Protein backbone atom coordinates (compact mmCIF):
# COMPACT_ATOMS: atom_id res chain seq x y z
CA UNK A 1 0.00 0.00 0.00
CA UNK A 2 1.22 3.45 -0.82
CA UNK A 3 1.35 5.85 2.08
CA UNK A 4 1.32 9.58 1.48
CA UNK A 5 4.30 10.16 3.76
CA UNK A 6 7.49 8.14 4.25
CA UNK A 7 8.37 9.55 7.64
CA UNK A 8 6.26 11.16 10.34
CA UNK A 9 7.80 12.58 13.46
CA UNK A 10 5.04 13.22 16.00
CA UNK A 11 5.77 15.39 19.05
CA UNK A 12 9.12 13.72 19.64
CA UNK A 13 11.04 14.77 22.75
CA UNK A 14 14.36 13.40 23.95
CA UNK A 15 15.70 14.32 27.34
CA UNK A 16 19.19 13.64 28.71
CA UNK A 17 18.68 14.31 32.40
CA UNK A 18 17.05 17.74 32.66
CA UNK A 19 18.29 18.85 29.25
CA UNK A 20 15.91 18.42 26.32
CA UNK A 21 18.10 17.67 23.29
CA UNK A 22 15.03 17.40 21.09
CA UNK A 23 12.00 19.34 22.30
CA UNK A 24 8.56 18.44 20.94
CA UNK A 25 9.46 18.24 17.26
CA UNK A 26 6.93 17.23 14.57
CA UNK A 27 7.32 17.00 10.81
CA UNK A 28 6.60 14.76 7.82
CA UNK A 29 8.67 13.81 4.82
CA UNK A 30 7.00 12.89 1.53
CA UNK A 31 8.19 9.98 -0.65
CA UNK A 32 11.10 10.90 -2.89
CA UNK A 33 11.77 14.12 -1.04
CA UNK A 34 15.25 15.44 -0.19
CA UNK A 35 14.69 16.80 3.29
CA UNK A 36 17.44 18.53 5.26
CA UNK A 37 17.73 19.38 8.91
CA UNK A 38 20.00 22.39 9.25
CA UNK A 39 21.34 23.67 12.51
CA UNK A 40 24.47 24.58 14.46
CA UNK A 41 26.35 21.81 16.28
CA UNK A 42 24.62 20.83 19.50
CA UNK A 43 21.16 21.84 18.26
CA UNK A 44 19.88 18.27 18.61
CA UNK A 45 19.85 17.32 14.93
CA UNK A 46 22.17 14.34 15.45
CA UNK A 47 20.04 13.08 18.33
CA UNK A 48 16.94 13.41 16.16
CA UNK A 49 18.59 11.46 13.37
CA UNK A 50 19.84 8.74 15.71
CA UNK A 51 16.27 8.34 16.99
CA UNK A 52 15.02 7.84 13.45
CA UNK A 53 17.79 5.27 12.83
CA UNK A 54 16.99 3.51 16.11
CA UNK A 55 20.18 4.20 18.09
CA UNK A 56 18.39 6.44 20.58
CA UNK A 57 14.87 6.14 21.93
CA UNK A 58 12.53 9.12 22.26
CA UNK A 59 11.46 10.09 25.77
CA UNK A 60 8.01 10.75 24.35
CA UNK A 61 6.33 11.03 20.98
CA UNK A 62 6.17 8.71 18.00
CA UNK A 63 8.29 7.99 14.94
CA UNK A 64 6.37 6.46 12.03
CA UNK A 65 7.74 5.13 8.80
CA UNK A 66 5.08 4.68 6.10
CA UNK A 67 2.54 4.94 8.88
CA UNK A 68 4.09 2.20 11.04
CA UNK A 69 5.31 3.17 14.49
CA UNK A 70 9.00 2.43 15.01
CA UNK A 71 8.89 2.64 18.80
CA UNK A 72 10.47 -0.55 20.16
CA UNK A 73 11.80 -1.61 16.75
CA UNK A 74 15.61 -2.03 16.95
CA UNK A 75 17.90 -0.35 14.41
CA UNK A 76 18.63 -3.58 12.57
CA UNK A 77 14.93 -4.17 11.89
CA UNK A 78 14.05 -0.70 10.56
CA UNK A 79 13.61 0.06 6.85
CA UNK A 80 16.02 2.95 7.36
CA UNK A 81 19.71 3.06 6.53
CA UNK A 82 22.26 5.60 7.47
CA UNK A 83 25.33 7.17 5.88
CA UNK A 84 27.59 8.00 8.80
CA UNK A 85 29.59 11.15 9.28
CA UNK A 86 32.77 9.08 9.28
CA UNK A 87 31.16 6.90 6.56
CA UNK A 88 31.99 3.87 8.76
CA UNK A 89 33.06 1.69 5.85
CA UNK A 90 34.27 -1.66 7.16
CA UNK A 91 38.05 -1.57 6.72
CA UNK A 92 38.34 -5.33 7.12
CA UNK A 93 36.19 -5.98 4.05
CA UNK A 94 36.50 -5.23 0.34
CA UNK A 95 34.27 -2.68 -1.40
CA UNK A 96 32.03 -5.46 -2.72
CA UNK A 97 31.73 -7.09 0.72
CA UNK A 98 30.81 -3.73 2.23
CA UNK A 99 27.97 -3.28 -0.22
CA UNK A 100 26.81 -6.91 0.10
CA UNK A 101 26.95 -6.83 3.92
CA UNK A 102 23.35 -5.82 4.55
CA UNK A 103 22.05 -8.32 2.00
CA UNK A 104 23.88 -11.26 3.59
CA UNK A 105 22.54 -10.14 6.97
CA UNK A 106 19.06 -10.54 5.51
CA UNK A 107 19.85 -14.09 4.48
CA UNK A 108 20.29 -13.39 0.77
CA UNK A 109 22.59 -16.07 -0.69
CA UNK A 110 26.23 -15.13 -1.15
CA UNK A 111 26.12 -15.37 -4.92
CA UNK A 112 23.01 -13.25 -5.24
CA UNK A 113 24.28 -10.69 -2.75
CA UNK A 114 27.50 -10.36 -4.73
CA UNK A 115 25.58 -9.99 -7.96
CA UNK A 116 23.33 -7.27 -6.54
CA UNK A 117 26.27 -5.47 -4.95
CA UNK A 118 28.02 -5.58 -8.28
CA UNK A 119 25.03 -4.04 -10.06
CA UNK A 120 24.69 -1.37 -7.40
CA UNK A 121 28.37 -0.42 -7.70
CA UNK A 122 27.86 -0.08 -11.43
CA UNK A 123 24.91 2.28 -10.91
CA UNK A 124 26.94 4.58 -8.65
CA UNK A 125 29.80 4.63 -11.13
CA UNK A 126 32.17 2.24 -9.35
CA UNK A 127 32.12 -0.61 -11.83
CA UNK A 128 34.99 -3.02 -11.25
CA UNK A 129 35.81 -1.66 -7.77
CA UNK A 130 34.33 -4.66 -5.95
CA UNK A 131 37.65 -6.29 -5.10
CA UNK A 132 39.40 -3.13 -3.90
CA UNK A 133 40.15 -2.42 -0.25
CA UNK A 134 38.08 0.48 1.06
CA UNK A 135 41.28 2.14 2.26
CA UNK A 136 42.44 2.33 -1.36
CA UNK A 137 39.57 4.62 -2.41
CA UNK A 138 39.47 8.39 -2.80
CA UNK A 139 37.16 10.49 -0.61
CA UNK A 140 34.48 10.77 -3.26
CA UNK A 141 34.58 7.04 -4.02
CA UNK A 142 34.26 6.17 -0.35
CA UNK A 143 31.24 8.42 -0.21
CA UNK A 144 29.60 6.56 -3.05
CA UNK A 145 30.34 3.17 -1.47
CA UNK A 146 28.70 4.32 1.77
CA UNK A 147 25.58 5.38 -0.14
CA UNK A 148 25.56 2.26 -2.33
CA UNK A 149 25.76 0.12 0.82
CA UNK A 150 22.46 1.68 1.95
CA UNK A 151 20.68 1.89 -1.39
CA UNK A 152 21.28 -1.77 -2.23
CA UNK A 153 18.88 -2.61 0.61
CA UNK A 154 16.16 -0.49 -1.03
CA UNK A 155 15.30 1.29 2.21
CA UNK A 156 12.27 3.53 2.60
CA UNK A 157 14.52 6.23 3.92
CA UNK A 158 18.22 7.04 3.76
CA UNK A 159 19.64 9.13 6.58
CA UNK A 160 22.79 11.13 5.89
CA UNK A 161 24.75 12.53 8.85
CA UNK A 162 26.95 15.33 7.46
CA UNK A 163 28.71 12.91 5.12
CA UNK A 164 30.49 15.71 3.25
CA UNK A 165 32.11 17.18 6.35
CA UNK A 166 35.43 15.38 5.94
CA UNK A 167 35.93 16.27 2.27
CA UNK A 168 37.98 19.19 1.00
CA UNK A 169 36.17 22.20 -0.46
CA UNK A 170 36.40 21.37 -4.17
CA UNK A 171 35.27 17.79 -3.74
CA UNK A 172 32.49 18.91 -1.42
CA UNK A 173 31.09 21.22 -4.09
CA UNK A 174 31.24 18.37 -6.57
CA UNK A 175 29.65 15.82 -4.22
CA UNK A 176 26.72 18.16 -3.48
CA UNK A 177 25.68 17.95 -7.11
CA UNK A 178 26.41 14.24 -7.35
CA UNK A 179 24.43 13.43 -4.23
CA UNK A 180 21.42 15.36 -5.52
CA UNK A 181 21.60 13.53 -8.85
CA UNK A 182 21.95 10.16 -7.13
CA UNK A 183 18.89 10.86 -5.04
CA UNK A 184 17.03 11.82 -8.23
CA UNK A 185 17.93 8.61 -10.10
CA UNK A 186 17.06 6.29 -7.25
CA UNK A 187 14.06 8.36 -6.22
CA UNK A 188 14.69 7.39 -2.60
CA UNK A 189 13.69 9.64 0.28
CA UNK A 190 16.75 11.31 1.82
CA UNK A 191 16.91 12.92 5.22
CA UNK A 192 20.12 14.91 5.39
CA UNK A 193 21.53 16.67 8.41
CA UNK A 194 24.14 19.37 8.22
CA UNK A 195 25.39 22.55 9.81
CA UNK A 196 26.44 23.90 6.42
CA UNK A 197 23.66 26.10 5.05
CA UNK A 198 25.04 26.00 1.52
CA UNK A 199 24.82 22.16 1.42
CA UNK A 200 21.23 22.33 2.61
CA UNK A 201 20.23 25.13 0.22
CA UNK A 202 21.75 23.51 -2.85
CA UNK A 203 20.45 19.97 -2.41
CA UNK A 204 17.18 20.08 -0.51
CA UNK A 205 13.55 20.15 -1.56
CA UNK A 206 12.70 21.28 1.95
CA UNK A 207 14.79 22.33 4.91
CA UNK A 208 14.04 22.36 8.62
CA UNK A 209 16.14 24.87 10.55
CA UNK A 210 16.77 23.54 14.03
CA UNK A 211 17.98 25.42 17.08
CA UNK A 212 18.17 24.35 20.73
CA UNK A 213 16.10 21.23 20.21
CA UNK A 214 13.26 22.92 18.33
CA UNK A 215 12.41 23.55 14.70
CA UNK A 216 12.53 27.29 13.93
CA UNK A 217 11.08 26.98 10.44
CA UNK A 218 10.39 24.36 7.80
CA UNK A 219 10.23 25.39 4.16
CA UNK A 220 11.79 25.39 0.73
CA UNK A 221 15.30 26.88 0.41
CA UNK A 222 13.83 30.03 -1.20
CA UNK A 223 11.24 30.52 1.52
CA UNK A 224 13.88 30.26 4.22
CA UNK A 225 16.16 32.66 2.46
CA UNK A 226 13.65 35.29 1.47
CA UNK A 227 11.03 34.97 4.19
CA UNK A 228 12.75 33.84 7.37
CA UNK A 229 10.22 33.26 10.14
CA UNK A 230 12.55 33.98 13.05
CA UNK A 231 15.66 36.08 13.67
CA UNK A 232 17.64 32.85 14.07
CA UNK A 233 16.73 31.68 10.58
CA UNK A 234 17.43 35.12 9.15
CA UNK A 235 20.96 35.16 10.54
CA UNK A 236 21.79 31.45 10.18
CA UNK A 237 20.73 31.01 6.54
CA UNK A 238 22.83 33.13 4.21
CA UNK A 239 24.83 36.32 4.73
CA UNK A 240 23.00 39.26 6.26
CA UNK A 241 23.32 42.69 7.87
CA UNK A 242 21.89 42.70 11.37
CA UNK A 243 20.98 45.77 13.44
CA UNK A 244 19.42 46.17 16.82
CA UNK A 245 17.15 49.09 17.72
CA UNK A 246 13.78 50.17 19.08
CA UNK A 247 10.47 49.96 17.30
CA UNK A 248 9.47 53.55 16.51
CA UNK A 249 6.13 53.20 14.78
CA UNK A 250 4.26 50.37 13.19
CA UNK A 251 1.23 50.00 10.99
CA UNK A 252 -0.07 47.16 8.89
CA UNK A 253 3.17 45.21 8.68
CA UNK A 254 5.30 48.25 7.91
CA UNK A 255 7.57 49.25 10.79
CA UNK A 256 10.20 51.87 11.54
CA UNK A 257 13.15 51.02 13.70
CA UNK A 258 15.21 53.64 15.53
CA UNK A 259 18.88 52.67 15.81
CA UNK A 260 20.93 53.67 18.89
CA UNK A 261 22.48 56.51 16.87
CA UNK A 262 19.04 57.98 16.26
CA UNK A 263 18.90 56.99 12.60
CA UNK A 264 15.55 55.50 11.55
CA UNK A 265 15.15 52.65 9.06
CA UNK A 266 11.94 51.37 7.42
CA UNK A 267 11.15 47.67 7.17
CA UNK A 268 8.56 44.91 7.20
CA UNK A 269 7.59 42.82 10.19
CA UNK A 270 6.52 43.03 13.78
CA UNK A 271 8.31 43.96 16.97
CA UNK A 272 7.65 44.93 20.55
CA UNK A 273 9.89 47.40 22.36
CA UNK A 274 13.17 46.08 21.02
CA UNK A 275 13.61 45.26 17.36
CA UNK A 276 16.09 43.32 15.20
CA UNK A 277 16.43 44.31 11.57
CA UNK A 278 17.99 42.18 8.81
CA UNK A 279 18.99 43.16 5.28
CA UNK A 280 20.70 40.85 2.76
CA UNK A 281 23.89 42.33 1.23
CA UNK A 282 22.53 41.84 -2.30
CA UNK A 283 19.46 43.97 -1.36
CA UNK A 284 21.68 46.97 -0.60
CA UNK A 285 21.75 49.29 -3.64
CA UNK A 286 24.85 51.41 -4.23
CA UNK A 287 25.20 54.70 -6.09
CA UNK A 288 27.71 57.47 -6.52
CA UNK A 289 25.10 60.24 -6.01
CA UNK A 290 22.06 60.14 -3.78
CA UNK A 291 19.72 61.07 -6.62
CA UNK A 292 19.97 57.59 -8.13
CA UNK A 293 18.47 56.13 -4.91
CA UNK A 294 15.78 58.81 -4.66
CA UNK A 295 12.79 56.51 -4.43
CA UNK A 296 14.17 54.26 -1.64
CA UNK A 297 12.85 54.81 1.91
CA UNK A 298 16.23 53.93 3.43
CA UNK A 299 19.08 56.08 2.13
CA UNK A 300 22.43 56.72 3.80
CA UNK A 301 25.86 58.11 3.03
CA UNK A 302 29.03 56.15 3.68
CA UNK A 303 32.63 55.50 2.82
CA UNK A 304 34.12 52.17 1.71
CA UNK A 305 36.16 50.70 4.59
CA UNK A 306 37.12 47.38 2.99
CA UNK A 307 36.83 45.53 -0.30
CA UNK A 308 36.46 41.78 0.27
CA UNK A 309 37.17 40.39 -3.17
CA UNK A 310 35.98 36.77 -3.62
CA UNK A 311 34.91 36.47 -7.25
CA UNK A 312 31.16 36.26 -7.58
CA UNK A 313 30.78 36.40 -3.80
CA UNK A 314 32.74 39.65 -3.40
CA UNK A 315 31.43 42.25 -1.00
CA UNK A 316 32.08 45.72 0.34
CA UNK A 317 32.10 46.96 3.91
CA UNK A 318 30.82 50.52 4.08
CA UNK A 319 31.22 52.75 7.14
CA UNK A 320 27.84 54.42 7.16
CA UNK A 321 26.70 57.41 9.17
CA UNK A 322 24.28 56.26 11.87
CA UNK A 323 25.39 52.60 11.93
CA UNK A 324 27.75 51.21 14.52
CA UNK A 325 28.96 48.41 12.28
CA UNK A 326 29.83 48.78 8.61
CA UNK A 327 27.05 47.94 6.15
CA UNK A 328 27.82 44.94 4.00
CA UNK A 329 26.87 45.11 0.32
CA UNK A 330 27.60 43.04 -2.79
CA UNK A 331 30.49 44.42 -4.85
CA UNK A 332 29.15 45.32 -8.30
CA UNK A 333 31.09 43.40 -10.95
CA UNK A 334 30.23 45.79 -13.81
CA UNK A 335 29.34 49.48 -14.13
CA UNK A 336 30.92 52.59 -12.67
CA UNK A 337 31.25 51.10 -9.14
CA UNK A 338 33.07 47.89 -10.18
CA UNK A 339 36.46 49.47 -9.57
CA UNK A 340 35.60 51.15 -6.27
CA UNK A 341 38.47 51.49 -3.79
CA UNK A 342 38.77 51.79 -0.02
CA UNK A 343 37.98 55.32 1.12
CA UNK A 344 35.66 56.17 -1.76
CA UNK A 345 32.42 57.90 -0.75
CA UNK A 346 29.27 56.00 -1.68
CA UNK A 347 25.51 56.17 -1.14
CA UNK A 348 23.60 53.09 0.07
CA UNK A 349 19.89 52.34 0.14
CA UNK A 350 17.30 49.56 0.29
CA UNK A 351 13.57 49.07 0.07
CA UNK A 352 11.33 48.54 3.08
CA UNK A 353 10.42 45.07 1.73
CA UNK A 354 14.06 43.99 1.81
CA UNK A 355 14.38 44.66 5.52
CA UNK A 356 12.90 42.00 7.85
CA UNK A 357 12.15 43.16 11.38
CA UNK A 358 11.65 40.88 14.37
CA UNK A 359 11.04 41.41 18.05
CA UNK A 360 14.37 41.32 19.90
Amino acid at each position, binding site marked *: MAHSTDLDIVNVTKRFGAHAAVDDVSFSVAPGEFFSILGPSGCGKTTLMRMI*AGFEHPTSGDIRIRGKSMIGVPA*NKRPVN*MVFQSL*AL*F*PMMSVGENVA*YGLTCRGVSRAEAEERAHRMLERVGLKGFGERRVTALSGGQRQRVAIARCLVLEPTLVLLDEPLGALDLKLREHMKIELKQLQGTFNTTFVYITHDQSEALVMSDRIAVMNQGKFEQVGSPRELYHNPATPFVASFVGETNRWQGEAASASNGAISVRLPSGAVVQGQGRAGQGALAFVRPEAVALAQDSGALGNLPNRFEGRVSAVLFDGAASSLLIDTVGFEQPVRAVLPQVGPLAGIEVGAPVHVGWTADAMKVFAA
Partner: protein
Amino acid sequence: MNRPSLAWKLYIAAFYLFLFAPLMIVAIFAFNASPFPSPPWRGFALEWFTGSGTVFGKPGVLVDPIWLSSIGNSFKVAIPVALLAVLLGTVNAWVLERAEFRGKTFLAMMMLWPLVIPGVVLGISILAFFSRLANGLEDWLQTDLDFLRPGLGLVVLGQLSFILTITTLIIAARLRKFDRSLEEAAFDLGATRMRVLRTVTLPFLWPALIGAGLVALLMSFENFNTTLMLVGSEAPLPITMYGQMREGASPAINAVSLLLMLGVGGIAGVFALTSKAER
Protein backbone atom coordinates in the same frame (compact mmCIF):
# COMPACT_ATOMS: atom_id res chain seq x y z
CA MET B 1 71.94 18.14 17.54
CA ASN B 2 71.41 16.45 14.20
CA ARG B 3 75.16 16.04 13.63
CA PRO B 4 76.21 13.33 16.04
CA SER B 5 79.82 13.58 17.16
CA LEU B 6 82.24 10.71 16.63
CA ALA B 7 82.32 10.01 20.35
CA TRP B 8 78.57 9.64 20.38
CA LYS B 9 78.64 7.22 17.45
CA LEU B 10 81.39 5.18 19.11
CA TYR B 11 79.33 5.07 22.27
CA ILE B 12 76.34 3.73 20.33
CA ALA B 13 78.50 1.05 18.73
CA ALA B 14 80.00 0.06 22.08
CA PHE B 15 76.53 -0.05 23.59
CA TYR B 16 75.20 -2.50 21.03
CA LEU B 17 78.32 -4.64 21.46
CA PHE B 18 77.69 -4.64 25.22
CA LEU B 19 74.04 -5.53 24.56
CA PHE B 20 74.77 -8.54 22.40
CA ALA B 21 78.08 -9.83 23.84
CA PRO B 22 76.53 -12.08 26.49
CA LEU B 23 74.03 -13.56 24.05
CA MET B 24 76.67 -14.18 21.39
CA ILE B 25 78.91 -15.93 23.91
CA VAL B 26 76.06 -18.15 25.04
CA ALA B 27 75.20 -19.03 21.45
CA ILE B 28 78.77 -19.69 20.34
CA PHE B 29 79.64 -21.95 23.21
CA ALA B 30 76.61 -24.12 22.55
CA PHE B 31 78.69 -25.57 19.71
CA ASN B 32 81.96 -26.01 21.61
CA ALA B 33 83.13 -29.59 21.66
CA SER B 34 84.00 -29.45 25.33
CA PRO B 35 82.45 -30.82 28.53
CA PHE B 36 82.60 -27.31 30.10
CA PRO B 37 80.91 -24.11 28.95
CA SER B 38 84.14 -22.13 28.89
CA PRO B 39 87.12 -21.43 26.66
CA PRO B 40 89.33 -22.63 25.06
CA TRP B 41 87.50 -23.46 21.85
CA ARG B 42 87.86 -27.16 21.17
CA GLY B 43 86.13 -27.39 17.83
CA PHE B 44 82.60 -27.38 16.48
CA ALA B 45 80.12 -30.03 17.62
CA LEU B 46 76.38 -30.59 17.82
CA GLU B 47 76.92 -32.94 20.76
CA TRP B 48 75.08 -30.64 23.19
CA PHE B 49 71.98 -30.65 21.02
CA THR B 50 71.62 -34.21 19.86
CA GLY B 51 74.47 -36.20 21.43
CA SER B 52 73.52 -39.34 23.36
CA GLY B 53 76.01 -38.68 26.15
CA THR B 54 78.67 -41.14 25.11
CA VAL B 55 81.23 -38.41 24.37
CA PHE B 56 80.96 -36.03 27.36
CA GLY B 57 79.05 -38.17 29.85
CA LYS B 58 75.89 -36.06 29.60
CA PRO B 59 73.30 -36.20 26.84
CA GLY B 60 72.36 -33.30 24.53
CA VAL B 61 69.29 -31.18 25.14
CA LEU B 62 67.04 -32.82 22.61
CA VAL B 63 67.50 -36.27 24.11
CA ASP B 64 67.87 -35.41 27.80
CA PRO B 65 64.63 -36.18 29.66
CA ILE B 66 65.35 -33.44 32.25
CA TRP B 67 65.44 -30.68 29.64
CA LEU B 68 62.66 -32.13 27.55
CA SER B 69 60.32 -32.43 30.49
CA SER B 70 61.04 -28.90 31.69
CA ILE B 71 60.42 -27.55 28.19
CA GLY B 72 57.19 -29.55 28.24
CA ASN B 73 56.28 -28.09 31.65
CA SER B 74 56.89 -24.60 30.33
CA PHE B 75 54.42 -25.24 27.52
CA LYS B 76 51.94 -26.75 29.98
CA VAL B 77 52.02 -23.42 31.80
CA ALA B 78 52.44 -20.98 28.92
CA ILE B 79 49.60 -22.22 26.72
CA PRO B 80 46.84 -22.05 29.36
CA VAL B 81 48.23 -18.72 30.57
CA ALA B 82 48.19 -17.27 27.06
CA LEU B 83 44.69 -18.54 26.27
CA LEU B 84 43.20 -17.40 29.57
CA ALA B 85 45.03 -14.07 29.45
CA VAL B 86 43.64 -13.29 26.00
CA LEU B 87 40.12 -14.46 26.81
CA LEU B 88 39.83 -12.70 30.17
CA GLY B 89 41.88 -9.73 28.92
CA THR B 90 39.31 -9.20 26.17
CA VAL B 91 36.47 -9.17 28.70
CA ASN B 92 38.44 -6.76 30.91
CA ALA B 93 39.20 -4.51 27.96
CA TRP B 94 35.49 -4.46 27.22
CA VAL B 95 34.78 -3.43 30.80
CA LEU B 96 37.36 -0.64 30.61
CA GLU B 97 36.29 0.74 27.24
CA ARG B 98 32.59 0.03 26.95
CA ALA B 99 30.90 -0.50 30.30
CA GLU B 100 29.65 2.37 32.43
CA PHE B 101 29.30 1.85 36.16
CA ARG B 102 30.23 3.44 39.43
CA GLY B 103 33.75 2.68 40.62
CA LYS B 104 35.12 2.14 37.11
CA THR B 105 38.11 4.44 37.68
CA PHE B 106 38.91 2.51 40.84
CA LEU B 107 38.69 -0.81 39.01
CA ALA B 108 40.94 0.51 36.24
CA MET B 109 43.54 1.53 38.85
CA MET B 110 43.27 -1.89 40.50
CA MET B 111 43.94 -3.55 37.16
CA LEU B 112 47.22 -1.65 36.89
CA TRP B 113 48.27 -2.53 40.41
CA PRO B 114 49.83 -5.97 39.71
CA LEU B 115 52.51 -4.21 37.64
CA VAL B 116 53.83 -2.39 40.72
CA ILE B 117 54.05 -5.48 42.91
CA PRO B 118 57.43 -7.27 42.91
CA GLY B 119 57.10 -10.73 41.36
CA VAL B 120 58.45 -12.46 44.46
CA VAL B 121 55.78 -10.81 46.60
CA LEU B 122 53.06 -11.86 44.16
CA GLY B 123 54.44 -15.38 44.39
CA ILE B 124 54.50 -15.64 48.18
CA SER B 125 51.12 -13.99 48.64
CA ILE B 126 49.43 -16.40 46.23
CA LEU B 127 51.30 -19.31 47.80
CA ALA B 128 50.22 -18.32 51.32
CA PHE B 129 46.61 -17.57 50.38
CA PHE B 130 46.06 -20.76 48.41
CA SER B 131 47.67 -22.85 51.13
CA ARG B 132 45.22 -21.42 53.66
CA LEU B 133 42.40 -22.01 51.19
CA ALA B 134 43.56 -25.59 50.64
CA ASN B 135 43.89 -26.25 54.37
CA GLY B 136 40.44 -24.91 55.08
CA LEU B 137 38.74 -26.70 52.22
CA GLU B 138 40.52 -29.99 52.89
CA ASP B 139 39.40 -29.97 56.52
CA TRP B 140 35.88 -29.20 55.42
CA LEU B 141 35.61 -31.55 52.45
CA GLN B 142 37.87 -34.26 53.91
CA THR B 143 39.70 -34.66 50.62
CA ASP B 144 43.05 -33.71 49.12
CA LEU B 145 43.09 -30.61 46.94
CA ASP B 146 46.53 -30.88 45.33
CA PHE B 147 45.80 -28.34 42.62
CA LEU B 148 45.85 -25.61 45.28
CA ARG B 149 49.30 -26.72 46.42
CA PRO B 150 52.55 -25.60 44.75
CA GLY B 151 52.65 -27.01 41.24
CA LEU B 152 51.99 -26.10 37.64
CA GLY B 153 48.36 -25.13 38.35
CA LEU B 154 49.41 -22.57 40.92
CA VAL B 155 52.17 -21.34 38.58
CA VAL B 156 49.49 -20.68 35.94
CA LEU B 157 47.48 -18.63 38.43
CA GLY B 158 50.55 -16.77 39.67
CA GLN B 159 51.66 -15.80 36.17
CA LEU B 160 48.12 -14.94 35.16
CA SER B 161 47.89 -12.47 38.05
CA PHE B 162 50.18 -9.95 36.31
CA ILE B 163 50.13 -11.10 32.66
CA LEU B 164 46.39 -10.33 32.65
CA THR B 165 47.21 -6.67 33.23
CA ILE B 166 49.44 -6.64 30.17
CA THR B 167 46.97 -8.37 27.85
CA THR B 168 44.13 -6.19 29.15
CA LEU B 169 46.13 -3.06 28.35
CA ILE B 170 47.10 -4.27 24.86
CA ILE B 171 43.55 -5.25 23.91
CA ALA B 172 41.99 -2.15 25.52
CA ALA B 173 44.38 0.08 23.55
CA ARG B 174 43.18 -1.49 20.31
CA LEU B 175 39.54 -1.36 21.34
CA ARG B 176 39.91 2.34 22.13
CA LYS B 177 40.95 2.99 18.53
CA PHE B 178 37.83 1.26 17.26
CA ASP B 179 35.32 3.56 15.58
CA ARG B 180 32.02 2.78 17.28
CA SER B 181 30.12 3.95 14.22
CA LEU B 182 31.36 0.81 12.42
CA GLU B 183 29.29 -1.28 14.82
CA GLU B 184 26.34 1.05 14.45
CA ALA B 185 26.67 0.91 10.67
CA ALA B 186 26.60 -2.89 10.71
CA PHE B 187 23.63 -2.89 13.07
CA ASP B 188 21.91 -0.29 10.87
CA LEU B 189 22.43 -2.52 7.83
CA GLY B 190 20.47 -5.25 9.56
CA ALA B 191 23.07 -7.37 11.38
CA THR B 192 22.23 -8.97 14.72
CA ARG B 193 24.38 -8.15 17.79
CA MET B 194 26.23 -11.46 17.48
CA ARG B 195 26.84 -10.90 13.80
CA VAL B 196 28.20 -7.40 14.45
CA LEU B 197 30.64 -8.88 16.96
CA ARG B 198 31.69 -11.66 14.61
CA THR B 199 31.97 -9.71 11.36
CA VAL B 200 33.12 -6.27 12.51
CA THR B 201 34.45 -6.03 16.07
CA LEU B 202 36.44 -9.26 16.35
CA PRO B 203 38.13 -8.91 12.94
CA PHE B 204 39.24 -5.46 14.05
CA LEU B 205 40.57 -6.75 17.38
CA TRP B 206 42.24 -9.79 15.84
CA PRO B 207 45.80 -8.40 15.52
CA ALA B 208 45.69 -7.25 19.14
CA LEU B 209 44.42 -10.64 20.31
CA ILE B 210 47.27 -12.42 18.49
CA GLY B 211 49.78 -9.88 19.75
CA ALA B 212 48.55 -10.14 23.34
CA GLY B 213 48.63 -13.93 23.12
CA LEU B 214 52.24 -13.95 21.90
CA VAL B 215 53.33 -11.48 24.57
CA ALA B 216 51.61 -13.60 27.21
CA LEU B 217 53.32 -16.72 25.85
CA LEU B 218 56.74 -15.08 26.00
CA MET B 219 56.23 -13.57 29.44
CA SER B 220 55.04 -16.89 30.80
CA PHE B 221 57.96 -18.74 29.24
CA GLU B 222 60.57 -16.52 30.79
CA ASN B 223 58.97 -15.68 34.11
CA PHE B 224 61.19 -16.64 36.97
CA ASN B 225 60.44 -14.68 40.15
CA THR B 226 56.78 -15.56 40.62
CA THR B 227 57.21 -19.07 39.27
CA LEU B 228 60.04 -19.84 41.70
CA MET B 229 57.73 -19.37 44.67
CA LEU B 230 54.88 -21.47 43.33
CA VAL B 231 56.65 -24.33 41.64
CA GLY B 232 56.22 -27.89 42.87
CA SER B 233 58.07 -30.97 41.72
CA GLU B 234 57.60 -30.28 38.00
CA ALA B 235 59.95 -27.46 37.08
CA PRO B 236 59.43 -25.24 34.05
CA LEU B 237 62.46 -24.29 31.98
CA PRO B 238 63.69 -21.18 33.86
CA ILE B 239 63.62 -23.05 37.17
CA THR B 240 65.63 -25.95 35.74
CA MET B 241 68.10 -23.49 34.20
CA TYR B 242 68.49 -21.69 37.50
CA GLY B 243 69.19 -24.94 39.30
CA GLN B 244 71.79 -25.97 36.73
CA MET B 245 73.46 -22.57 36.79
CA ARG B 246 73.88 -22.70 40.54
CA GLU B 247 75.44 -26.15 40.35
CA GLY B 248 77.71 -25.36 37.41
CA ALA B 249 76.13 -26.40 34.18
CA SER B 250 77.28 -28.32 31.13
CA PRO B 251 77.12 -26.63 27.72
CA ALA B 252 73.71 -28.25 27.36
CA ILE B 253 72.37 -25.10 29.01
CA ASN B 254 73.91 -23.06 26.19
CA ALA B 255 72.11 -25.25 23.71
CA VAL B 256 68.80 -24.73 25.55
CA SER B 257 69.43 -21.00 25.62
CA LEU B 258 70.11 -20.91 21.91
CA LEU B 259 66.87 -22.78 21.23
CA LEU B 260 65.07 -20.24 23.43
CA MET B 261 66.62 -17.35 21.52
CA LEU B 262 65.57 -18.88 18.22
CA GLY B 263 62.05 -19.44 19.55
CA VAL B 264 61.82 -15.87 20.79
CA GLY B 265 63.22 -14.59 17.51
CA GLY B 266 60.55 -16.56 15.66
CA ILE B 267 57.73 -15.24 17.84
CA ALA B 268 59.10 -11.70 17.59
CA GLY B 269 59.03 -12.12 13.81
CA VAL B 270 55.37 -13.20 13.85
CA PHE B 271 54.65 -10.30 16.19
CA ALA B 272 56.34 -7.79 13.88
CA LEU B 273 54.32 -9.14 10.95
CA THR B 274 50.97 -8.91 12.76
CA SER B 275 51.72 -5.42 14.03
CA LYS B 276 52.57 -4.40 10.47
CA ALA B 277 49.22 -5.81 9.34
CA GLU B 278 47.64 -3.74 12.09
CA ARG B 279 48.76 -0.59 10.32
